[in-house]
């Protein structure tokens, strides 16, 4: 019995060691490129092109970033990205929680049809709506405007689905009690329901902000002049344009795109991963 126990324990120890080795190698493979990106962005172009490469920068320089922020308009792109992402997030939080509440807790004709339409929309690939959306936005005269960048993303089927599912778990009694106290419907929503939705709102807010910040195809076609570019658009166009092998510039641009998201993610990751595990949507 004792012999068997120690045998088991050694086997456990071996299994554990193997697991750690594999996981650490995996972590290196996944996080390594980011570290490499950050380190290389601090090297002068000459050192970036050196073979064999230096792991740690021999000369640390901020020249790449200086160029992004002075010669190129990265502060403006950053502002555009932030403005669009913030407004899109606010819109989604507000409109999706309103309709999510109605779908979960109110009874009115047409509700079922509305919910089915939302569910159906979850299946539709972006490319299907892409062309008509572009025609629509250009007919409205909104190409190359902030409104054109924001309006098509102000609501989304996913947000409604998430909010409705969450709101269904809120007990009816709370809402009934407020109604008996004579509170108006909107007041009930704002004062009673919404504060209870904080976890769902946090998840939806983070996910919407990220997908807006990283959104690429739509701003690529709607923003036609540089002053309306968002960060990913600017970075993508530099990386396929004449600067395509100007790695110092591109890598530091990538750092600027990734860093805010990274900070948000690391600060809120608990919320984040829990939200994804329960909703199953990124």
């Amino acid at each position, binding site marked *: 019995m004792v012999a068997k126990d120690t045998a088991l324990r050694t086997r456990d120890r071996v299994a554990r060691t193997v697991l750690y080795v594999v996981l650490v190698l995996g972590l290196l493979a*996944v996080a390594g490129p980011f570290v490499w990106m950050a380190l290389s962005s601090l090297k002068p172009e000459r050192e970036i092109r050196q073979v064999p490469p230096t792991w740690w920068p021999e000369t640390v320089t901020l020249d790449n970033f200086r160029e992004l922020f002075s010669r190129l308009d990265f502060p403006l792109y950053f502002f555009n990205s932030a403005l669009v992402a913030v407004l899109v997030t606010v819109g989604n939080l507000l409109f999706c929680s309103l309709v999510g509440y109605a779908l979960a807790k109110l009874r009115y004709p047409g509700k079922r049809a509305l919910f089915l339409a939302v569910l159906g929309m979850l299946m539709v690939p972006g490319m299907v709506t892409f062309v008509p959306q572009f025609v629509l936005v250009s007919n409205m005269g909104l190409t190359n405007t902030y409104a054109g960048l924001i309006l098509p993303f102000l609501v989304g089927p996913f947000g409604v689905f998430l909010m409705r599912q969450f709101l269904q778990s809120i007990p009816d009694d709370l809402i009934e009690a407020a109604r008996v106290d004579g509170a108006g419907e909107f007041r009930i929503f704002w004062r009673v329901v919404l504060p209870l939705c904080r976890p769902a709102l946090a998840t939806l807010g983070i996910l919407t902000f990220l997908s807006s910040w990283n959104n690429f195809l739509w701003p690529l076609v709607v923003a036609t002049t540089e002053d309306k570019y968002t960060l990913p658009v600017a970075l993508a166009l530099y990386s396929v344009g004449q600067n395509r092998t100007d790695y110092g510039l591109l*890598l530091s641009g990538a750092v600027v795109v990734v860093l805010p998201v990274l900070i948000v993610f690391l600060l809120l990751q608990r919320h984040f991963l829990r939200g994804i595990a329960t909703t*199953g949507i990124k």
Partner: protein
Amino acid sequence: MTGASAATAPARPAGATSPDRPAGSVRRRQRLRRALTGWAFSAPFTVLFLVFMALPVVASLAMSFTDLRSTDLRNPLAVNAVGIDNYTRLFSDDLFLRSSVNTLVFVVVGVPLTMVLALAAATALNSGLVRFRALFRVGFYLPVVTSIVAIAVVWRFLLDPEIGLVNNLLRLVGIAGPSWLFDTRLALPSLIVMAAWRNFGFLMVIFLAGLQAVPADLYEAARLDGATRWQQFRNVTLPMLRPTLLFGGVITGIGYLQLFEEPFVMTQGGPLSSTLSVSFHIYNQFGFGNYGYAAAASYVLFVAIVALSVVQFRLLGERN
């Protein structure tokens, strides 16, 4: 639900309602008020949803049966209905066929690869043998939240034939690395590996949640029966995880069928269209101003996505 409300609803306003008013009119007014309230909450969303999503879905279908071009936008009368011409043209369009094959390869190889990586990571982290689980989880999830454009920039740098880290590491062990993204045979596989690298963290989180829902006494029972770790995995974990795996497979498949950004930033669809995807082809047709044709191609993609979901549900779901 309706029964319960009919029983309780009249009870409340009973004091307020004058007895001479017929109950029917009260109920009708209540119903009207409920409808108004419901739609007041739903209206802002519904308007935006109809204009920017539902309408485009329908418009796209309508467009796909016309020869609409970008130049026709100011002159809608020049647009002709062409029936299914766009669809028949698609299937004799070599580039569309090429892009379909590329996209299929991407899905057929990429989805299983991503799922295996995700399941391996999730199982390892769930085994109870590993500490610092949060660290690994966050680390593996990192690429999921980062912009694909930034990732593409980093990977192009890593895969650069001369100065890239990958080939420099290969050189250390005496292998002359190929020029990954400039080789017609290697470009698509490179994108597949990159996609698996980028997306497995997302599935890992989903699988972890699924694993944690497997009742511990099942493993207990299996262990009492003398099952090895591998047998436990085969006979307890996998069957219990089936719905989660199905879900993961479907959403990864849906995402991969829409492949666009990776080839756009990494290879521009090249070399020689070896990484041209269906979405990229649609985008190019849109760029050429062929709106009707692009819309038809997008509907073919839509049908493929629905079909893939149905097939996967059949394959993985039937034994439930």
